């Protein structure tokens, strides 16, 4: 059984839905396909806001797209492609207004405009917000728009394979989770919008569905490279215990960080910007405090909101308070919040250009799963929501144009379907002795210990060897559940294959890159090295591991300079 659509978008978070809307508005037959119902996608969890130089805040009047671009590029430690960043910051205002017109309930200023708050690494209050549920507010408005446009959604499907026929993308093979059937969906273009891989790390803010399966499918089955995968963002403030995100907006609204000695320790790292330095710097500072014995229980520091007062907390940070009440049993109006850094975001992803095109004609990528690159080595808070919508729209536009000038795909996917069917049968009939749950757990520990906030050669190469061993062990796993319907055992163990690949790519890229840049900090190479490393990493599937190549960074207006805050 097979379906056909002119465009199939894989992933129904903000980037995916926005791409589908654009294709629909261009008159194309487009459908969304997702692991979950669209409002369950991880965009829902974004809290703090979306950046745009609207200048609505009193001290934001002098802001403009060029200043936003500069902050983004400096924040990226000059690894972002500057032409792409300029596109993003120029488009920011129009897409924020569009989302407002589509119903997003942004918080408001005294004069009824979209409210904006300060965020790390930004020279002006630039982050538009809906209290502390901005992702939720945007995703619901985006989904509502897709309902208005009658966009079809295939819900609860897992992408297994991207079909490459005579060097163009011809569709996908998917597992219908509800029935357990494998299905082929032919398409003239496929847009990947599958989000990040946070769950390969032990401490992650990410949803449990964020396994990186889309990135892995692009790398393993479509033959496209992944770019800059060694750049992994650790969010400075995640709730100790569950690692649920505590928005940067908490510091944007004036929250402080304290160590065990009740010292606002950020004064020792970034005295000018204090708690509002970019995320990589604040995360390293917190981790340094913990590592040097100034944290609590050697594990966390305190985020203090108490001085903001009950009124402001209830108005601006009600979601944060709810999370603290339910998951930590404390009220931030009265008590400090125990926080630690946790994996949060992938700057790297499927290599694509500023039109969303990958090297495989007909295959596109947008959002966190993509690497354009607008975030370079470190993403600024508030720029990911922006990227999803701007590049979702752009990618939808260029994919539509591509499909319009192309003849309909008539690819025969029988053999591809058979290959995937065989793979699953093999997994189901395997009597291997390895326990996949153990492999999953070990991978998480390895990634935290060997490719975390602080990295060095021996740890990285040791970690790489360990992941290679896990990959070997994966070949001998067996699964408990052989039933077809809603087989989570199967789904999670299919996802595990991709997780192992991504772990290996991250470790190898980090090992090779002998410098420190943005989120990638090498204790054995503490300086940025523009002479040798001002370049993007490309990881190609070499069969028995990634083959790394490099390509130049696009520099337009902003010469790489010192990155001080």
């Amino acid at each position, binding site marked *: 059984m097979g379906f056909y659509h002119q465009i199939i978008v894989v992933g129904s978070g903000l980037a995916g839905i926005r791409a589908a809307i654009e294709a629909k508005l261009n008159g194309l037959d487009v459908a969304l396909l997702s692991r979950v119902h669209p*409002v*369950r996608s991880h965009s829902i969890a974004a809290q703090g806001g979306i950046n745009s130089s609207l200048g609505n805040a009193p001290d934001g009047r002098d802001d403009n797209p060029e200043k936003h671009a500069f902050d983004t590029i400096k924040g990226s430690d000059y690894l972002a492609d500057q032409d792409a960043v300029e596109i993003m910051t120029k488009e920011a205002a129009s897409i924020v*207004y569009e989302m407002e017109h589509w*119903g997003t*309930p942004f918080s408001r200023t005294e004069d009824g405009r979209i409210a904006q708050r300060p965020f790390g690494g930004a020279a002006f209050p630039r982050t538009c917000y809906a209290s502390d549920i901005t992702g939720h507010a945007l995703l619901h408005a985006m989904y509502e728009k897709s309902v208005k446009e009658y966009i079809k959604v295939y819900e609860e499907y897992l992408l297994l394979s991207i079909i490459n026929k005579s060097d163009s993308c011809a569709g996908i093979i998917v597992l219908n989770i*509800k029935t357990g059937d494998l299905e082929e969906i032919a398409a003239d273009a496929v847009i990947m919008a599958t989000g990040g891989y946070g769950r390969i790390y032990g401490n992650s803010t990410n949803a449990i569905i964020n396994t990186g399966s889309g990135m892995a499918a692009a790398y393993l089955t479509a033959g496209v490279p992944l770019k800059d995968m060694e750049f992994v963002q650790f969010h400075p403030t995640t709730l100790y215990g569950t690692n649920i995100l505590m928005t940067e907006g908490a510091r944007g609204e004036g929250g402080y960080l304290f160590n065990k000695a009740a010292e606002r320790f950020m004064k020792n790292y970034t005295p000018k910007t204090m708690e509002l330095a970019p995320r990589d710097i604040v995360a390293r500072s917190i981790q340094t405090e913990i590592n040097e014995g100034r944290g609590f229980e050697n594990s966390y520091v305190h985020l203090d909101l108490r001085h903001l007062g009950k009124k402001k907390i209830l108005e601006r940070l009600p979601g944060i308070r709810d999370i603290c009440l339910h998951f930590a049993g404390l009220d931030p109006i009265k008590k400090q919040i125990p926080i630690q850094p946790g994996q949060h975001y992938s700057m790297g992803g499927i290599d694509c250009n500023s039109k969303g095109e990958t090297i495989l004609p007909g295959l596109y990528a947008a959002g966190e799963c993509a690497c354009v690159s607008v975030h370079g080595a470190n993403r600024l808070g508030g720029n990911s929501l922006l990227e999803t919508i701007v590049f979702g729209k752009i990618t939808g536009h260029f994919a539509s144009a591509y499909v319009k000038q192309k003849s309909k795909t008539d690819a025969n996917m029988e053999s591809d379907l058979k290959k995937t069917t065989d793979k699953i049968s093999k997994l189901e009939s395997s009597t291997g002795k390895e326990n996949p*749950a153990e492999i999953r757990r070990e991978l998480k520990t390895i990634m935290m210990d060997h490719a975390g906030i602080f990295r060095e050669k021996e740890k990285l190469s040791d970690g790489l060897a360990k992941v290679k061993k896990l990959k070997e062990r994966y070949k001998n796993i067996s699964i408990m559940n052989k039933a077809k*319907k809603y*087989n989570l*055992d199967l789904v999670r163990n299919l996802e595990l294959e991709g997780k192992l690949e991504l772990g290996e790519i991250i470790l190898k890229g980090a090992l090779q890159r002998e410098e420190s840049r943005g989120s990638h900090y090498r204790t054995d190479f503490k300086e940025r090295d523009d002479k040798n490393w001002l370049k993007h990493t490309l990881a190609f599937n070499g069969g028995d591991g990634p083959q790394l190549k490099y390509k130049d960074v696009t520099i337009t207006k902003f010469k790489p300079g010192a990155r001080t805050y």
Partner: protein
Amino acid sequence: MVTFKIERFDPDVNKTPHFETYEVDAGKEMSVLEALFYILENLDGSLAFRYSCRGAVCGSCAMRINGKIRLACQTLIKTLKSKTITISPLPHLPIIKDLVVDMDRFFEKYKKIKPYLICDSTLPEKEIIQSKKDRQKIDEMINCILCGSCYAACTVSALDREFLGPAALTKAYRFVADSRDRAKSERLQMVGGEHGVFRCHTIFNCAQACPKNIVPTYSIQKLKGASIY
């Protein structure tokens, strides 16, 4: 050790649902969702349940836990103060497998009320101005995560398959109360019919079930009032 009694049902295989029992070595801070993963990975790979954010924002994991509808991720085992935890799927919805229910009926109702902003055809170049006070009017309703808890808890929804239900009506009021929306009379007509707001018996089951502390009854009463006057 905590004993989990979980309702199991595959309509293709079983005639009726039955309970299966699992012993879980529950850590101090373990959530019910984490316990389900423990069971899936260690005791029974055939258990089916939905999950995503694990932070009470995505609405995937609403289910009946010790008789009360809750989000599994937001429910810490210690807060249940019980050695036996009984879990069933959301009531009044068809079961696909175990704790996974078919939410189509729920989302059909949602789609029926035109769940999107309908504003003037000529839009300003920038944002539509909305005062802080007007924005506050929708504060509560926009917190809805579409988890279906209220719908499953509603006795009217259980008996009248056509009843729009608390979530869809709250969504309708979210737009009626939004100063930017221009479809108030159309919306009131939609919710005023035989299966609309006047079916609500104001027994507040929905409010009790909501994991986000929303009171759908408030929205419904507001819509009733607006429909009359």
